[in-house]
């Protein structure tokens, strides 16, 4: 059996089984995720040994669907599988008390399957499909508690924003297929020139939507309305990662101009959302903003021309961020809230969890020897090697600094002060999942050289350029991270942000944000159409009425003849003998007169015709 199929079908069939059986959802989910994980790992092992696999399915005429396992895709698949499995383990505990486990696990697995399809997709149609399907499943997951206030709008917004941005992907895909004459991703990567620039920019739009890049970052924070495992999954290796993965995979065809734009978008995002994270008063929302910020860093790396660095950070971030979320989930259960001021000191109640959380936080900030350090270092190295070093480097450093800042702030709030917590059920499951992820977050750094080698051997994407010694970026990165941590720990946010704090709290909403820029105009057009619609309807009815009126006129004509003319003649009629005769309508003589006149007209007409022919 093909391993690709295993990686995808295992979670998918688990979904179907859960939906059909409607019992043992957790067990089946774990089983499905685990089998998928095994498949992915074997794929990776095969790829390591230089074996690549491919499945071709019938799709649209002339455009078959492909699934390929190259080193890159196998790696991503493994990443997805690992995170999914661990999150699933955690979710077993987290969802213990929920009554709708069936739906939850089914959707979660569907999501995993879609994500696997996305990373393994070898052609654009399948990629696009998977891309949209993860949108759907994230919609369902975010909207899981659909009866809670705010949830439905959050889910809707997540789907709508990403779908709007997806138009970029659609059009880009069309351009690429048109240009290459094939929907195979590998063969479209040779595209160059104008189409490449256009497609690249469009892909960037799609990626911005999915990876929640400024100015489309708003939805991600709102998406926190969903259950925590969902957040963990969405924010680490899956939904949000899709954008970065897309750009990494298409990196070979991106033109320099596109790369610069990508870098700037990433840089702006990392700073803007970093500031938002710093100002945030809700733990999960803070983590969400941080996700955008980290993906901004990845885009900087892509923009710098070193997608490898982005990939490394993606992997590291996946482990780290899911750990953070899972930790946050435990905190949430113990305090029934995610607001930072309610979570004060929760770390002391859950020291083990807090320890894991803190490790992950430090890893995210980029403290050696945790994994984040290596990936950040790679990104900064990438900016150093870039042509646009003076734009990208400061932005990357600022992002790192901010990361340290908000993580330190969070840790400080969670640790200092005291509070009372309630016991958390299912802690064992949650701990296991969290533990696994934290472990990854800590040790993944060691695997990076191996990964680089693997990808180099596959010659899939460009390697980190080692022309500059690793020393400089390491110093720069570490100092920024430490600086951020110190600032965040010792200074309150009011001091750090000063006047822009309120603005940052509102998420730097420009011009009313999504609502004003997209929703309102769309609704306005819609209402315009509705008005036009009424008008048309009335128009049709009016035409009908006109017909009726004409008919009435015809009848009147019959009744009274060509009134005005004849009336005057008839009025002259002398009425003798004292017998008054009232003139009445419906008189044959008038009708005869009409006939006569009409026939005279006909005669004249006939002669005219005769003369002209």
């Amino acid at each position, binding site marked *: 059996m093909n391993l690709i199929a295993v990686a995808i079908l295992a979670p998918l069939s688990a979904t179907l089984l859960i939906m059909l059986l409607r019992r043992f959802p957790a067990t089946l989910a774990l089983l499905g995720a685990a089998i998928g994980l095994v498949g992915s790992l074997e794929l990776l092992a095969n790829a390591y040994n230089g074996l690549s696999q491919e499945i071709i399915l019938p799709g649209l005429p002339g455009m078959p669907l492909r699934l390929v396992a190259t080193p890159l895709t196998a790696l991503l698949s493994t990443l997805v599988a690992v995170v999914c499995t661990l999150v699933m383990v955690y979710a077993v505990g987290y969802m213990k008390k929920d009554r709708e486990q069936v739906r939850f696990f089914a959707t979660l697995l569907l999501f995993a399957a879609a994500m696997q399809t996305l990373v393994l997709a070898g052609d654009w149609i399948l990629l696009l499909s998977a891309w949209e399907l993860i949108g759907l499943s994230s919609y369902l997951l975010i909207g899981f508690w659909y009866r809670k206030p705010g949830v439905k709008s959050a889910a809707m917004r997540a789907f709508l924003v990403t779908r709007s941005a997806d138009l970029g992907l659609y059009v880009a895909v069309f351009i690429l297929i048109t240009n290459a004459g094939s929907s195979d991703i590998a063969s479209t990567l040779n595209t160059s020139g104008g189409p490449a620039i256009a497609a690249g920019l469009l892909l960037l739009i799609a990626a911005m939507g999915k990876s929640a890049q400024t100015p489309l970052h708003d939805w991600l924070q709102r998406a926190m309305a969903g259950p925590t495992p969902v957040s963990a999954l969405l924010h680490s290796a899956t939904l949000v990662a899709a954008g970065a993965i897309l750009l990494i995979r298409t990196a070979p065809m991106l033109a320099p101009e596109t790369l610069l734009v990508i870098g700037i978008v990433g840089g702006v995002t990392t700073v803007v959302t970093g500031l938002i994270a710093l100002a945030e008063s809700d733990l999960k929302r803070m983590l969400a903003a941080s996700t955008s910020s980290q993906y901004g860093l990845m885009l900087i790396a892509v923009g710098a021309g070193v997608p490898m660095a982005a990939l490394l950070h993606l992997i590291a971030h996946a482990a780290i961020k899911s750990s953070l979320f899972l930790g946050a989930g435990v905190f949430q259960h113990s305090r029934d809230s995610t607001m930072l001021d309610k979570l004060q000191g929760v770390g002391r109640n859950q020291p083990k969890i807090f320890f894991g959380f803190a490790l992950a936080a430090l890893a995210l900030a980029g403290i050696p020897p945790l994994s984040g350090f290596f990936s950040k270092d790679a990104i900064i190295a990438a900016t150093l090697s870039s042509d646009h070093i003076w734009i990208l480097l400061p932005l990357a450093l600022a992002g790192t600094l901010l990361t340290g800042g908000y993580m330190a702030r969070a840790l400080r709030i969670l640790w200092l002060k005291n509070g009372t917590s309630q016991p958390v059920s299912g802690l064992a499951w949650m701990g296991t999942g969290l533990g696994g992820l934290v472990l990854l977050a800590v040790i993944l750094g060691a695997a990076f050289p191996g990964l680089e080698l693997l990808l180099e051997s596959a010659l899939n994407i460009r390697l980190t350029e080692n022309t500059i010694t690793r020393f400089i970026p390491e110093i720069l990165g570490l100092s920024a991270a430490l600086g951020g941590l110190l600032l965040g720990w010792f200074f309150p946010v009011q001091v750090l942000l000063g006047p822009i704090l309120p603005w940052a709290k509102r998420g730097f909403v420009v011009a009313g944000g999504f609502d004003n820029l997209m929703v309102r105009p769309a609704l306005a057009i819609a209402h315009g159409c509705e008005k036009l619609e009424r008008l048309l309807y009335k128009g049709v009815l009016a035409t009908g009425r006109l017909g009726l009126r004409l008919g009435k006129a015809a009848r009147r004509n019959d009744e009274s003849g060509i009134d005005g003319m004849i009336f005057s*003649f008839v009025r002259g*009629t002398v009425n*003798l*003998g004292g017998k008054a005769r009232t003139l009445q309508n419906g008189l044959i003589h008038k009708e005869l*007169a009409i006939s006569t006149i009409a026939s005279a007209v006909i005669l004249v007409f006939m002669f005219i015709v005769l003369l002209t022919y």
Partner: protein
Amino acid sequence: MTAQMFFIGFFGLAGVWFGIVVFRTYSMVRSALALLFSQTALGAMFLSMEAEFLGVLQIMMMATEMSIMAIFMVMFMMDPGGLGTMDMTHQKRLSLITGFVSFVAAVLVAVFVDWGPVATSFPDAAQQTVDLGLELLNRSMLIFEMAGVTILTSMIAATAVAIQPVKRKQKQ
């Protein structure tokens, strides 16, 4: 100006004049009589055009017809004698214009159409009648028969319409 021309013109004028008179009197009886004269004048006109059979027939038929008409006039008119000056017309001006326009149009057609060569010879009265008879019983037999059926129909129709049903009276 041949005599024939004169007679044709004279009787034609007479016919038209009496025709006009039909509508210029206030009495229906007088109208009927005027029509009788008009038709008789036409009969005379036919005679002067050497269509003797037709002329005689016209005079005879019209005399009968108009006498019947006069009788009906008396029946239906409130004022058969025309003692009053009751106007029996309406939309007079329009009718006048129409009549005049029709007249002019017909004259124009008569005058300006090239009717082709005038026949030089034509059958004498006896031959005419023979021809007509042959025509009647040969080519135009169907027409002749149709005329007969039409007359039959007119009898049925007229009686059906005019005769008051007996049963109905009993009912009433």
